[in-house]
């Protein structure tokens, strides 16, 4: 609401000043101050700096997150310290289904690569965008897939596990990463060849206000009966970052 000669006129010389004349002008200024300083009243040159905005709040373990004016972010990671073994392991013995028959409900979250987030109420449009980045280390062990197998012809026959980003139990298939089975080639030291650093990222264009679960999930596939091409799937160091963009 602009303050101009129409909305805030001068007192006219020679006229009797009524109490209402004084009140009206004070009321106009008061109304202006109480929420009606609009875009046309703000200087158009750059003047807002970080001191004018509330400082971000950082929350630590066990649920690391950052709450700020223009964004909220959630951070998860697991880094091995020395000889510690904070690995996640899943076993083919309990796996189901076989490759090609899986659905989102077959996946399960990986510890330290998952977060329950809360998106604040969105005034305009109802949704905001979200970015998810993650990288992790994974491998499978003690399988019996022969190195003499015709791997060239069997690209889909020996996928030990799948990884995928999920938001509220909906998997984003474009983020899928496969772990192929280790073969018997080489000795124990050579198994390092088969271990994999993986990464994925995904853009979620709209996520609504309220609580949501975001996670990197994994699924160990079932091997055919009598075949143990892989036994254990391990996930080692993992890093999971989520950000919603509010401004």
């Amino acid at each position: 609401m602009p303050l101009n000669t129409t909305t805030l006129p001068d007192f006219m010389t020679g006229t009797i000043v009524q109490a209402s004349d004084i009140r009206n002008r004070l009321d106009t200024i008061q109304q202006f101050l109480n929420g009606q300083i609009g875009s046309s009243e703000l200087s158009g040159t750059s003047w807002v700096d970080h001191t004018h905005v509330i400082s971000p709040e950082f929350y630590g373990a066990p649920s690391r997150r950052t709450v700020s004016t223009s964004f909220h972010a959630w951070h998860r990671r697991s880094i091995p310290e020395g000889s510690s073994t904070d690995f996640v392991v899943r076993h083919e013995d309990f796996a189901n289904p076989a490759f090609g028959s899986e659905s989102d409900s077959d996946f399960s979250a990986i510890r330290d690569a998952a977060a329950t987030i809360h998106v604040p109420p969105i005034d305009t449009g109802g949704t905001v965008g979200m970015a998810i980045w993650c990288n992790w280390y994974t491998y499978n062990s003690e399988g019996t897939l022969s190195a003499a197998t015709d791997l060239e012809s069997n690209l889909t026959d020996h996928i030990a596990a799948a990884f995928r980003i999920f938001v509220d139990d909906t998997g984003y298939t474009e983020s899928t990463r496969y772990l192929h089975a280790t073969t018997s080639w080489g000795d124990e030291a050579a198994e390092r060849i088969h271990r994999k650093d993986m990464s994925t990222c995904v853009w979620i264009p709209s996520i609504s206000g309220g609580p949501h679960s975001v996670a990197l999930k994994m699924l160990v596939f079932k091997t055919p009966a009598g075949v143990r091409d892989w036994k254990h799937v391990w996930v080692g160091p993992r890093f999971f970052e989520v950000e919603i963009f509010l401004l």
Partner: protein
Amino acid sequence: MAHKFYQRYVQEGDITDPRDWTLNQQDLIEEFNGRLDRDNIDQSVVTTTMIKGNAFSIIRNVDHAEGAADVALEGGTIAWRSGDGTNTLGRIEVDLSSAALVWVWWSGYWEWTGGGFPSSISSISSVNTVRFRLTIDGIEVSRIHKSPGYRLFDCGFCVGSLAVDPGPHVIEVQAKMFIQPTNAAVQTAIFCTVKARDLVMWARRQ
């Protein structure tokens, strides 16, 4: 200072007192002259052009194409290191005047060479690995855990973040090699050369 209401109400029949005007104006003017906040300003009115540069974000990066800036990591050194004495894997120094959440991403590719490696499957036991970590002020925030030398060319990506206080900060990429040589001469002749790489930092201040 939230909503503001003038205190002295002027009504018909009152004796004219200039303080009714002056003090009321003073209240309102004091609000305007430096105490305006979210309750005074309308919603959705502050636009991009009204915001100073770096008020919310500070972005820095250092990236290299393959070539003169390659980092040749020699197999004889097994400690964490940030470069080869000539070139660095990735380093950003930034001085922040406010607390911030610092996002960092690093990706790159590397090639193993030297020492006749790898020449045949008879040297299977000589599988060597390289790992990378992304640090902020010396604190590891992400890593590429292990890449074996039998992947003659390999690449990786890592992402991390850390909340930091105001002041100077250093983002640095470091590498560490595990060499299983048959002898020391072979060890020092093996190189893992890091080539094209990209380090990006986004400090989110508000």
